[in-house]
């Protein structure tokens, strides 16, 4: 009952005119970012963080989270109408969605996808409401030893699943940790790797790094080809037939369960959820041979799953303080920039922020349903803007975003440098998701490791004295070693991928 009371208190916060406006703005921007090829949710959220500095923390987090799950809605539009996934998590939707569009049923596919996304997001948020109490109580028992083990487990899961090569994923994880080492040592307060530059005393800003690695690198990748592509999509009636609705109920429910559960697992991406949902639908179908010809089940399941995943991925952040995906890691960074530490203490110390944001997920999903059903034509029109114009505008926003983090032109240079690094790493097929997570978790990881070792006066045995830490570390070792065995590797290619979300 506590959870319901807290949620009602959260609605009182989320439904203020100001917070409604922020949820609306986040939803609109998320849909736009989802629709536009070439800018994903990670760079999108990072780019908007500086604009939230003058906002109150609740409004800022409400806007950024709405933007995050809004991208999942927007990504569907291009997948269905153009066969171009706006977001990686919507890639699988192209198979059935685009076939439906070719048959003149694109509008129905989008309508079912929006309804499924709404149901999936709502169910995952309800799971967060239920999980918040027990998980935060458990997390409050954690000391630095258990917290360190938990971070190690989260990172090992991510690296075990990111990309095709474990070595590359580990290298990228350590690369992120090394970037996090720049600046003041979090325990002693001594400068490290600053090379005498004042700009580096506070560390390398994660906003310019992420905008470079994810946003600018993507733009540079597109710059390889001549600009000028203009998409033209045709829309049909948005009203699904009664048969479409009947055929979608099962996939939407299954997709909600798959997305919510996989969203909890660090390293599991939104595309893993949508892919598994698609596979599940083909398995339970009475006519699996018809998949690939434009079946609504192949749109309803995956689109529900990826949105449930986006909302489900916020559960570990809110309850344990551990981000499960790169975009959630960026949102965690936004929390910290507003002086808030996500995790169990957030519910104790800032219940208005925690429950207000959770309640806003329901509000945001309703807004997105409205935005995506009657207004879908507007989003399609955005695709008609020539890329040669769009890329300049996006770059200008990136410059402003990078500069305004700390009013420093140095950050624009950092973004430019990491854009080049990100472009080269993509070319070499390195996964970038581990960099984001370790960059943000690095200082917390180091602090918990060093505090643990100070408690034991340097004895590593302290990690074997806590049963919770033993279990977490054993699981971490398992997930790191498992891919070495062919058995576990089978099918991993389909689940992995260095995509965003």
């Amino acid at each position, binding site marked *: 009952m506590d959870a319901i009371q807290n949620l009602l208190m959260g609605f009182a916060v989320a439904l203020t005119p100001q917070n409604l406006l922020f949820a609306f703005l986040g939803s609109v921007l998320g849909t736009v970012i989802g629709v536009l090829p070439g800018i994903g949710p990670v760079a999108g959220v990072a780019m908007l963080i500086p604009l939230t500095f003058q906002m109150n923390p609740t409004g800022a987090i409400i806007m950024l989270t709405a933007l995050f799950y809004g991208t999942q809605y927007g990504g569907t539009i291009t997948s269905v109408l153009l066969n171009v996934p706006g977001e990686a998590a919507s890639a699988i939707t192209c198979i059935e969605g685009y076939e439906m569009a070719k048959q003149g049923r694109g509008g129905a596919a989008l309508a079912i996808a929006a309804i499924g996304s709404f149901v999936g997001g709502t169910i995952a948020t309800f799971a967060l409401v239920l999980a918040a109490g027990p998980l935060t109580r458990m997390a409050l028992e954690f000391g630095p030893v258990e917290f360190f083990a938990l971070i190690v487990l989260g990172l090992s899961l991510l690296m075990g699943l990111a990309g095709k090569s474990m070595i590359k994923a580990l290298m990228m994880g350590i690369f992120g940790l090394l970037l996090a080492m720049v600046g003041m040592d979090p325990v002693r307060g001594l400068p490290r790797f600053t090379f005498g530059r004042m700009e580096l005393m506070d560390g390398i800003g994660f906003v310019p790094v992420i905008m470079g690695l994810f946003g600018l690198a993507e733009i540079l990748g597109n710059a390889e080809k001549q600009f000028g592509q203009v998409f033209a999509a045709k829309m049909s009636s948005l009203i699904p037939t009664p048969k479409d609705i009947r055929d979608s109920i099962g996939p939407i429910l299954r997709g909600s369960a798959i997305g919510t559960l996989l969203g909890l697992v660090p390293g599991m991406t939104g595309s893993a959820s949508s892919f598994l949902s698609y596979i599940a639908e083909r398995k339970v179908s009475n006519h699996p041979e018809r998949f690939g010809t434009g079946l609504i089940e192949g749109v309803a399941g995956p689109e529900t799953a990826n949105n449930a995943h986006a909302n489900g991925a916020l559960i570990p952040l809110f309850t344990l303080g551990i981000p499960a995906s790169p975009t959630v890691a960026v949102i965690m960074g936004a929390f910290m920039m507003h002086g808030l530490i996500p995790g169990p203490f957030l519910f104790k110390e800032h219940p208005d922020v925690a429950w207000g944001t959770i309640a806003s997920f329901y509000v945001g999903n309703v807004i997105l349903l409205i935005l995506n059903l009657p207004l879908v034509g507007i989003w399609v029109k955005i695709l008609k803007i020539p890329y040669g114009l769009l890329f300049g505008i996006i770059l*200008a926003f990136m410059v402003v975003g990078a500069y305004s983090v700390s009013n420093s032109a140095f950050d624009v240079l950092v973004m430019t440098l990491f854009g080049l690094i990100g472009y080269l790493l993509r070319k070499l097929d390195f996964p970038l998701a581990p960099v984001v997570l370790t960059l943000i978790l690095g200082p917390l990881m180091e602090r918990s490791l060093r505090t643990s070792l100070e408690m034991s006066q340097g004895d590593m045995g302290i990690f074997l004295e806590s049963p919770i830490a033993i279990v977490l570390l054993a699981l971490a070792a398992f997930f790191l070693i498992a891919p070495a065995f062919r058995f576990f590797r089978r099918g991993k290619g389909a689940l992995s991928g260095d995509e965003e979300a």
Partner: protein
Amino acid sequence: MKRVYQTAGLCFVGLSAFVVWESWTLEYYTNLGPGPGFFPLWLGVVMGALSLAWFVQVSGRKGGPDDVAILPERAGILRILSTLAALAAMAGLMNLFGFQLAMFLLLVFLLKVLGRQALWVTLVVALLGSVGVYHLFGAYLDVPLPAAAVKLLANLGL
């Protein structure tokens, strides 16, 4: 193309060696426990081992990466380098010329030269993106963007 991967592997080995070297100059252990050099030193060592392992892996591989065309065409490389150079110039000039002029020039370059947009479109977007954004951010979002350090430009309101 194998050489591209090997070069990248060596770059990572070099980075690891640099990190280990730098960490060595920091305190590894104190009376209270691990010092500032403890974590980066071990990270550098592990990174070095992984980089070497990857270098050996790509060196011994037949096919695979060799078959992948990594480098874009000459025109693509030029567009990428121009974009990076324009952004670096923006970073260098925004404090000197002020945000408005620097952003106007950046947008004109990006839209007209790289994006090949019509002149009127370029000018309208560049004006909105420079003068418009400067005033919008300063007046409504309380995010001050830099004014020109050059007196003549500052007197012109840039």
